[in-house]
C-alpha cells in the first residue's frame, strides 16, 4: 500500500473521531446546562480549555457564553479543529484514498460532510442544536458500521483503526486529566463534597454515563469513575480498551507485513503500564502524572507509526 494512502487513512479516521468527540462533549455540556442551574459558563469554558484552544478562542470572543463556544467548536472560522473543518479534512483525505475504501464507506463519509456543511452554514440556534449533534454522531456510527461490514480487514483497515484509537485515547486522557486536575488538585481520590454533576458531565462526554451506572449500579465515586475510564477494558472509550485495539492492529500489521515494528513494541509497553495500573491501587497513583505520561507516549506512538510505515509526505 502507498505510504501516502496509509497517511490519509490514518488522519481521516483521526479527524472523524475528533469531530465525533467534539459533538459528544457539547452534547454533555448542553445536558448539564439545561438540567443544572448552577455553574454559569464554566463548563463551556472547560470545553475550550481542555482542547488547548484558549488563545485562538480569546482572539475572537470576550466571554465563554454558550452561543459563542458552540459556534466556535462547531463552525468557527479561526478554529482549525472546528467540526465543520474536521469533516471537510476527513473527506479530503478520504477523497485522496477513495479507491482504498468501499463505496459504502466513502458514501457515508461524503454524506456526513454534505449534511454537516449544510447544517453548519449559518450560526447554530439552540433549538437546532440537539438534532445537529445527533446527526454528526450518527454519521460517525454509520461510517463505523460500513467500515466493519464492508471493508476487508487488512492493512487499510488497520491504519484506519489505529487513527481512531490513537485519537480516542488522546481525547479520553485529556478529558480525564483535565477534570481531575480541576476537581481534585491534591490528586487524592477520596470522595469529598463533590457536585455529582461534575462526574456526570465527564462520563457523558465519553458516552459512558449509562455504562458506568450499569457497571457500578449507580454508586458515583471519583475513584471508580477514573478507574472505569482508564482501566475498564469493557468500555470502548477507556484507555485500556484503546490500547488493546491499538496493539491488536499493530500486531496485525506485523503479521501481514512479516516483520517486527518498534512502534508496536512501544504500544505494547504502554498497554503493559495500563494493565499494571489496573492491578495497582489507584489511590496511590499520581493520576495527573500517569495521564501526562500516557498523552506523551500516545503522541510519540503516532509519530513512530508515521516514520516506520512511510506515512509522512
Amino acid at each position, binding site marked *: 500500500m*502507498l505510504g501516502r494512502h496509509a497517511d490519509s487513512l490514518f488522519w481521516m479516521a483521526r479527524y472523524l473521531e475528533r469531530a465525533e468527540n467534539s459533538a459528544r462533549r457539547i452534547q454533555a455540556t448542553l445536558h448539564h446546562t439545561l438540567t443544572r442551574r448552577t455553574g454559569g459558563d464554566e463548563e463551556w469554558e472547560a470545553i475550550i480549555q481542555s482542547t488547548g484552544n484558549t488563545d485562538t478562542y480569546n482572539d475572537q470572543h470576550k466571554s465563554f457564553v454558550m452561543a459563542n463556544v458552540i459556534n466556535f467548536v462547531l463552525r468557527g472560522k479561526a478554529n482549525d479543529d472546528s467540526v465543520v473543518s474536521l469533516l471537510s479534512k476527513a473527506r479530503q483525505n478520504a477523497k485522496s484514498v*477513495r479507491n482504498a475504501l468501499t463505496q459504502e464507506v466513502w458514501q457515508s463519509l461524503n454524506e456526513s460532510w454534505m449534511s454537516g456543511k449544510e447544517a453548519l452554514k449559518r450560526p447554530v440556534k439552540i433549538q437546532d442544536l440537539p438534532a445537529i449533534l445527533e446527526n454528526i454522531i450518527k454519521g460517525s456510527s454509520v461510517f463505523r458500521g460500513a467500515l466493519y461490514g464492508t471493508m476487508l480487514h487488512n492493512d487499510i483497515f488497520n491504519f484506519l483503526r489505529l487513527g481512531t484509537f490513537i485519537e480516542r485515547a488522546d481525547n479520553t486522557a485529556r478529558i480525564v486529566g483535565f477534570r481531575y486536575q480541576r476537581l481534585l488538585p491534591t490528586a487524592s481520590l477520596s470522595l469529598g463534597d463533590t457536585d455529582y454533576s461534575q462526574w456526570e458531565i465527564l462520563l457523558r462526554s465519553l458516552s459512558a454515563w449509562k455504562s458506568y451506572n450499569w457497571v457500578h449500579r449507580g454508586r458515583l465515586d471519583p475513584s471508580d469513575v477514573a478507574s472505569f475510564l482508564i482501566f475498564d477494558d469493557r468500555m470502548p472509550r477507556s484507555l485500556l480498551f484503546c490500547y488493546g485495539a491499538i496493539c491488536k492492529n499493530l500486531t496485525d500489521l506485523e503479521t501481514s507485513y512479516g516483520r517486527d515494528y518498534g512502534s508496536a513494541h512501544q504500544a505494547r509497553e504502554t498497554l503493559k503500564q495500563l494493565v499494571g495500573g489496573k492491578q495497582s491501587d489507584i489511590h496511590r497513583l499520581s493520576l495527573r502524572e500517569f495521564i501526562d505520561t500516557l498523552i506523551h507516549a500516545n503522541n510519540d506512538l503516532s509519530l513512530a507509526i508515521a516514520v516506520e510505515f512511510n506515512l509522512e509526505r
Partner: protein
Amino acid sequence: MNFGVRALRDMFDEAFGCSEGKGRQPYLKLIPWIEEQGFGKLSKQSIQAEELFRSIGITFNVYGDSDGEERIIPFDLIPRIISSREWLHLEKGIIQRVAAINAFLADIYHRQEIIRAGIIPSELINSNAAFLPEMCGFTPPGNIYTHIVGVDIVRTGPDEFFVLEDNARVPSGVSYMIENRATMLQMFPELFANHRIRTVSDYPKQLFQSLAESASSFIDDPNVAILTPGIFNSAYYEHSFLADEMGIDLLEGSDLEVRGGRVTIRTTTGTSPVDVIYRRIDDDYLDPLSFNPDSVLGTPGLFDAYRNGVVMLANAPGAGIADDKAVYSYMPEIIKFYTGEKPLLDNVPTWRCADPESLQYVISNLDDMVVKEVNGSGGYGMLVGPAASKRELKDFSRKLRANPSNYIAQPTLSLSTVPVLTRSGLAPRHVDLRPFVLVSPEKIRVTPGGLTRVALKKGSLVVNSSQGGGTKDTWVLEA
C-alpha cells in the same frame, strides 16, 4: 406529456428527425415509454438521479471558480440512441483515423516523411509548442503513442457525421460514460429489459489489457498505476474511479521515486516497482528535470527512466502534436498518407487563419464562424460567432489579426439535437459524441457509444461541462 417542440426548424433531431412524425427507428420503443412515464414522474426521477450523483461524489472542480465548490455535471435522463448500422460506420472511421494518428506520431518523431513528401509544412510541426524534440528518435514500447484517444464527433443529418476534434493527450469523460449507464440501469431496469444495448462497463478491464499489450515488449504482467495531479484536479473523480475499477494504485507525483534507474512507489513496507503509468498529467508537469522545472506534480528522473525503457507512459509525451487544431486541418491528408485510403469520417471544413486569404475570409464572415485557439481545450477562449455580440466580434477580430496562426475557424454547423427533459417538458438540445478508443499493438478497441455531451441552454452549441453542458447515457443498439 408535453413534448414541446419536437424538432427545430432546419435542424436534425435524432429522436424525431425533421418532422413531427412518430420518431426515428432507434427511438420507437423509447418514445412510448417517455409518454407513459409522464412529465411529473420523470422530473422526480431526474432529481433522484442528481442526488445519487452527489452522494456518490461524481463531481468536478471548475477552474477559476473562486468558491472552489464541487459541481456535478447535469445528467439528462433521456438516452441518446445510435443504431447498429450507424455505429458500424462510426467505428470503422474512428479506427482508421486513430491508426493514422499513431502512424503520424511515429513518423513525426522519426524520419518526418510526411514533411519530406510536402504534405504538411515543416514549421507546423517543428515550431509547434506541442512538439517535443526530446522524443525524437525514441520509439515507445509497442510503437504506440496514443494508448487512449477521444474522438469528438458531431452530426448534422441522418448520415452526416464529422470529426470535430481529436483528443490525443489525456481525454477525459469516460467515467461519466460508465456512471451514466450505471445510473440508468439502477433507475430504469425496464428499459434495458426491452432494448438490446451494448455494454460499456468492460472499459476499465479493456484499458488494463490494452496497456499490458503495449508494454509486453519489455515486461509480462506489468504493475500498472494511474498518476493524478491530485484531488483538486477537475477530473480527479475519474482518476480515482478508473484506479478503483482496474484495482490499481492511484499515484501522485510525490509517491514516485526513480531509484537506481527503476521507477518505484513509496509504500508502507518500503518501495515497490511500477512498470506502466497511465498519467493524467500534462507533459510539462511529468518531470521537473526534463520539462517544467517548477513542477511540484512531477517526478524527477521519470522521463529519463522512460527513455531507458524501464517504464511505459501512456499516452506518450509529445502525443499532443496530433491533436493540435492546426494539425487537425490536415487530418484528411494525414489519413490518406498513412493508410492509403480515403477518410471514412470527414473533418469539419477548417480555415487556418495563418493563411492570409483564409484570415480575410474568416474575419469577413466572423458572425457565422466558430473560432478556436489551436492549443485550446475545454471550450475556453473560443468564439461562437452567431452567439457573440457586436463588441465581442470586434474584439475577437483584433485578436485574430494580432496572432492569426494561433487560431482556426470552422463554419457554425447545425448540430443534431436530442430531446432533454426541461422544466416545461421535452425540448431539443444540441449534442456531440466522444467515443473512447484504446490502442495497443494488437488491437484498436472502441467502446460502443461514448460520452454524449449536451448543451442544456436553448440554442447553445457549446457542450463543454465547464460551460454549462450536461451529459446523457448513450446507447448503441445490438444488430
